[in-house]
């Protein structure tokens, strides 16, 4: 029945046009397959473990060796080098390629027996803060564990109720519960963000050539005829075709990439799908608007690349938005990905009810309106190309 509808005709034509374009095949098949799997493979180990460290034990006592054993038993540390002089400490980062150096001072054991406080010096290579933070955390944990054990040994002979030892040595116990990504897994952390930002880029870039490419290839008149001169049918027909492609790409992300890399989805799939449809629609309409306004497809592509490339940096995913200057905060708000990401994380990692993502949904709706306004602007600016030229061609 609907086979004769202009929207369906345009949709069919657009599906075929997109399938025939090398550029679209690159964007929707080749690039995602290569880039998504490459990005996932980078972090395939999930979390950083056994960071290589060096130890300079200037005491060589029973207690210093105990301290080293504690270091060795930490799941995050791997003692790979034992240094024999203080001079070797600085060059250890370059020569031995370690990320941290533990320096146990002379008389470490003796001083502890004499109740003279001792200080273990830890040098971390903080040119990479991922290692820096991990080493800081592990160093504190190990040192506190050894220090606590020494205190317990000293407390015991002084006469203490055994039930109160822990209350004295560690009066406040922090029970930490981590939501979202309790495994501290980098694949779970970064890959969903990276794949979805690329989803936005791909759809936006492809949509930014939806109309100007037809003008360049001189196929617009044909399209105009197919739609029976109805511009709404052209826009909707094209929109549905791009939506199918966008959902196909989302399928690749959530049905293939996520399971391959073992990324769990905690939230409701239907909610996630609804959010994706909204997000994809926003990008299609914004891309269409750009394509209708800017006749030169290469310039349109330039603008699309320029607008989308910093989306990940501005999304607040790796560096919080509140820590950015006001201008950058405004730019971050002007990118749909920022709002999608917040809603996406709420649904997929925290499994929040739908009501919690309304603020982001409203913002994405605003982008939809902006997209429609851009399309209308494009229709007005290029009315000659859109309405008059195809009519003249028909005549």
């Amino acid at each position, binding site marked *: 029945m609907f086979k004769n509808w202009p929207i369906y005709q345009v949709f069919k034509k657009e599906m075929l046009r997109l399938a025939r374009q090398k550029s679209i095949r690159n964007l929707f098949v080749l690039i995602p397959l290569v880039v998504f799997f490459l990005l996932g493979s980078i972090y395939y180990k999930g979390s950083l473990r056994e960071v290589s460290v060096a130890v300079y034990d200037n005491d060589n006592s029973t207690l210093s060796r105990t301290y080293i054993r504690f270091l060795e038993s930490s799941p995050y540390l791997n003692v790979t080098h034992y240094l024999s002089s203080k001079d070797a400490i600085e060059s250890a980062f370059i020569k031995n390629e370690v990320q941290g150096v533990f320096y146990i001072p002379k008389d470490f054991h003796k001083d502890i027996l004499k109740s003279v406080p001792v200080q273990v010096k830890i040098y971390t290579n903080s040119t990479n803060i991922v290692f820096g933070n991990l080493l800081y955390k592990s160093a504190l944990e190990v040192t506190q564990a050894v220090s606590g054990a020494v205190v317990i040994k000293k407390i015991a002979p002084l006469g203490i109720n055994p039930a109160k030892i822990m209350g004295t040595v560690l009066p406040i116990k922090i029970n930490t519960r981590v939501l979202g990504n309790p495994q501290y897994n980098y694949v779970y952390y970064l890959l969903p963000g990276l794949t979805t930002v690329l989803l936005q880029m791909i759809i936006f870039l492809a949509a930014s050539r939806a109309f100007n490419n037809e003008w360049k290839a001189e196929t617009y008149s044909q399209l105009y005829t197919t739609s029976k001169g109805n511009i709404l049918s052209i826009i909707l027909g094209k929109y549905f075709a791009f939506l199918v492609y966008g959902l196909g790409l989302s399928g690749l992300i959530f049905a293939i990439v996520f399971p391959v890399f073992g990324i769990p989805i905690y939230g409701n799939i239907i909610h996630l799908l609804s959010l994706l449809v909204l997000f994809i629609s926003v990008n299609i309409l914004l891309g269409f608007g750009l394509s209708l306004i800017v006749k030169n497809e290469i310039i349109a592509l330039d603008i699309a690349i320029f607008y989308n490339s910093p989306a990940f940096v501005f999304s607040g995913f790796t560096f919080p938005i509140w820590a950015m200057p006001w201008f*950058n905060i405004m730019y971050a708000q002007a990118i749909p990905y920022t709002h999608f990401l917040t809603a996406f994380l709420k649904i997929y990692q925290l499994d*929040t009810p739908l009501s919690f993502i309304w603020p982001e949904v409203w913002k994405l709706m605003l982008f939809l309106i902006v997209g429609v306004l851009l399309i209308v602007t494009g229709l007005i600016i290029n009315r000659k190309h859109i309405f008059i030229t195809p009519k003249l061609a028909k005549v």
Partner: protein
Amino acid sequence: MNLSVIWKLFKKEAELVQNDHSVLLALLVAPLLYFLLMGSTYINKDEEQVSVGIVDLDQTKSSKAFLNKVNATQKIAITKTYTNFLEAKCGLNEFEIQGIINIPNGFEKKLKKNESSPIGLILINTKFLSSNDINKAVNLVAIDYALEARQKFFESKGINPSFAKQKANPITAQVNAVYNPTNNYGNFLLPALLILILHQTLLIGLSESVSSDRKNGLMTIGFEESKNNVINYIFGKTGFYLILYTAYMLLTYFVVFPFFDLPIKGSIFSLIIVSILFLFTTLLYGWFVTSFFKSQVRAMEVMAFTSYPIFLITGITWSVSEMPLFLQFISNLIPLKPFFTFLKKVTIMGVDSNLYYEEIIHLLILLLIGYIATFLRLNYLKKQRMTLKSVIK
């Protein structure tokens, strides 16, 4: 090498750039705008005032004192107070707060009785940076309490306060964040990000020019004009980009680095020379890859999507040795990888020259690979054109 031929090709390329608005945008507008936009994102270098919510069911002096201590830490700000955990969880779900500190009833009582008093800390780990900062701050405050309790115990046994203090904490860890003393995000990421901006805009601009040459059959004509000499052709074709991007590099080191308070502790001379070597290697690689594209649009699209994988595969955020072998191999073929290592050593670490020879040799090897690839590709295209010509004849 024929300088007049190179100069002719150089002028031709400059004219092409001048007349092509898209290339002009990529080469002249994008780098500066990105510097401003993306560089300034990290101007504060680190996060502060990470918002934390509290559920204080104890409502005692001790619980308030604990929370005040947490609030007084540099990176944490207690922004919300909830009456129950469910309410707090809503705040967490709305991302109003990044974590919850939950103090149960009887907290003070247990503390006074010298019993272990547990506190709940709930963190959202969707973003690592904030969750790490909260975790660190709360645990450090808990350690302060531990030291105080131990000291009090020793004092109660008749030990004088200063000696009791020493006994309370026999071993301390002094962590020195070498090279980046405040362990901040900006110093870690910004230098690499600035270089990536230059790298990507250069590749996009060059790819547009090369694919346009290929499409219009100008590539082999240019090669013929260079008297079929690869060196003449490459210097002529890429010379403009090399000079422009060397200027950008100088701008980066002498203006952008000081503006963002990024250090250059090593030899500035080595930095400039190796940067030029890196740019030239990148140009050869870029020319070779984009010579396979006949469409400007396709070349731009592909180049635009290389930013994330190229940046991440170089090991700037994740150790290369932790990647699968095939990625380690690919990583070593990318000029950015040795250049980033070199950059780190010269700028933030300031090491002696004998400690970065390896990276320079690595770049020279990549330059050689790039040259061979370009040479073979140009000869292949030349042969292809000859065959086509003879068929037409």
